């Protein structure tokens, strides 16, 4: 088990290194930031000074080395546009993204499991078919277009909910949170629903498939034969057995929610990391792009590592394969 964990950690570190080289080399190829960052009126001395200040005059490998050295100490450069450390910008925006992603996960779980259960118990019924048709739509509809339609219907036509921003926030240990104020919740509903849609469809499908499988099992047949009420069969024997894998998947998908939040945040002007990334790309703010990418890569590597370890803990077959 220990060798497996160590090997897996080594792989993660290697992946991180490869990604950092790719990201850095790629960002370097974007173009000449000098042209974008320095006003055309600047004279030669000013240009030279700025290049020296940003370290753009050194060879590529040296720039990478400097970057790596400072990255390991948590210093990922200063944003060209905002003149604050890039990592500070990202970390400032991170709570908003996490709040959005977690709310979306909660929505997906709270709606997805009952709907999936219903569709699994009565697959041929009108309700079951509608739920499945809805989940096909949820998979097919592009997130950004659904977001636009939500704004169109609930903000523009009906005027029920605000379309942009986070609303009033409350600081908890210095972290601003929206879901603690009524205004914040009103701002949270549309983007969180938008982000949850794909997850919701996924959970509906998983729960439905799990339910149908569980209903075929002997323990359900025996429970019924024993005279357990249908309600208890579902609650104790079906639901409890499918809950663990379904909730696990919901948790694991947190990573892709954070990635998809880029789209949702842009549409709803939600001030999270994703919107920051798109804004930074538009003004070619290199340090922020690099910092975002490294933060998200770290996040994913950690999530993937946890997933693997969790699977190993849950399923001994995986462990055997890994150490062989």
């Amino acid at each position, binding site marked *: 088990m220990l060798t497996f964990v160590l090997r897996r950690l080594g792989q993660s570190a290697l*992946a991180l290194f*490869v990604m950092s080289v790719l*990201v850095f080399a*790629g*960002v370097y*190829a*974007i*173009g000449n930031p000098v042209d974008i960052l320095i006003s055309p009126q600047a004279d030669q001395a000013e240009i030279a000074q700025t290049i020296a200040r940003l370290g753009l005059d050194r060879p590529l490998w040296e720039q990478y080395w400097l970057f790596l050295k400072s990255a390991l100490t948590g210093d990922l450069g200063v944003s060209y546009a905002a003149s604050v450390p890039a990592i500070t910008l990202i970390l400032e925006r991170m709570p908003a993204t996490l709040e959005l992603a977690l709310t979306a996960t909660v929505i997906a779980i709270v709606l997805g499991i009952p709907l999936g259960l219903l569709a699994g118990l009565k697959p041929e019924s009108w309700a079951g078919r509608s739920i499945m048709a809805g989940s*096909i*739509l949820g*998979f*097919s*509809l*592009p*997130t*950004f*277009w659904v977001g*636009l*339609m939500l*704004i*169109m219907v609930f*903000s*523009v*036509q009906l005027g029920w909910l605000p*379309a942009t921003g986070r609303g009033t926030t409350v600081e908890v240990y210095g972290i601003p949170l929206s879901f603690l104020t009524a205004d914040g919740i009103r701002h949270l509903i549309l983007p969180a629903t938008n982000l949850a849609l794909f997850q919701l469809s996924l959970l509906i499908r998983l729960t439905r498939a799990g339910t149908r499988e569980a209903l075929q099992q002997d323990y359900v047949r025996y429970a019924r034969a024993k005279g357990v009420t249908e309600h208890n069969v579902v609650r104790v024997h079906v639901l409890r057995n499918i809950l663990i894998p379904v909730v696990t998947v919901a948790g694991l998908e947190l*990573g*892709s929610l954070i*990635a*998809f939040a*880029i*789209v949702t945040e*842009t*549409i709803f002007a939600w001030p999270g990391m994703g919107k920051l*990334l*798109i804004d930074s*790309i*538009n003004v070619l703010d290199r340090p922020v*792009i690099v910092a975002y*990418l490294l933060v*998200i890569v770290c996040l*994913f590597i950690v999530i*993937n590592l946890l997933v693997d370890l969790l699977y190993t803990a849950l399923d001994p077959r995986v462990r055997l394969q890994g150490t062989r």
Partner: protein
Amino acid sequence: MKSAVALSPAREFTRGYARDRIAVVALWVLCALLLAAIAAPLITPQNPYDLAQLDILDSKLAPGAASTAGYTYWLGSDDQGRDMFSAILYGLRISLGVGVLSTVAALAIGLVIGLIAARGGGWVDALIMRVVDLQLSFPSILVALILLALAGQGVDKIIIALIVVQWAYYARTVRGAALVELRKEYVDAAVCAGYSSVRVLFRHVLPNVLPPLIVVATVQVAHAIALEATLSFLGLGMPITSPSLGLLIANGYVHLLSGKYWISFFPGIALLLTIVAINLVGDQLRDVLNPRLK
């Protein structure tokens, strides 16, 4: 002789496909969309990208309004006085073209790499599969965004990004299928007959791993189209000179808040129809061609 033998599986396939009425409708819709996209210059009242044909006085007209040139804007017009119906068909061309092209290219690249991994074995296999695993552990939207953030905009760049996002998936599937095939007797027979391993791989193994992949690729075209639309919407995809459906939707976004819904809404419907139709056709193809379900 040959045609008589080939006809009956074809008939069986047609019958199997037609069993699901929704899938048949989806197929018709898809054919109609493809035809409309191909024939766009012939059936649209206006070339939306010929500035001489645009009239700024016609800008942002509601659906059903008459243009100064005499025809009707059935789906309204955008802020440049462009007929949305024409713009959508031209956009559909670009979306479908990019989706199909990138999927076919990714399929080809994934096939070759997957076959090399399966045949090569050892460190070649290990290296390729590590790269595949690493890439597949990130959501495709993130990989595509990173690439486009680094490489900049352009039709060529978005196609490359869509290929990069998809190839690993095919490579993994092909490797798995090819490993199974390589253990079969016909491969031993071909090797004994003295054929080179390249020939065995591409003439004998490839035809056996290809059919299920083509079905997968059908559905992947829909993913590619959706991804391209998303990236274009974020302003990282197609350049303004080749407006895909995603870009049309993005252009209408600013007018959405003032109640001019049609500039975003109708391109979205076209996108939705395309994606759903492709998905339904792909699902049905998979079910019909899956021998386990017979």
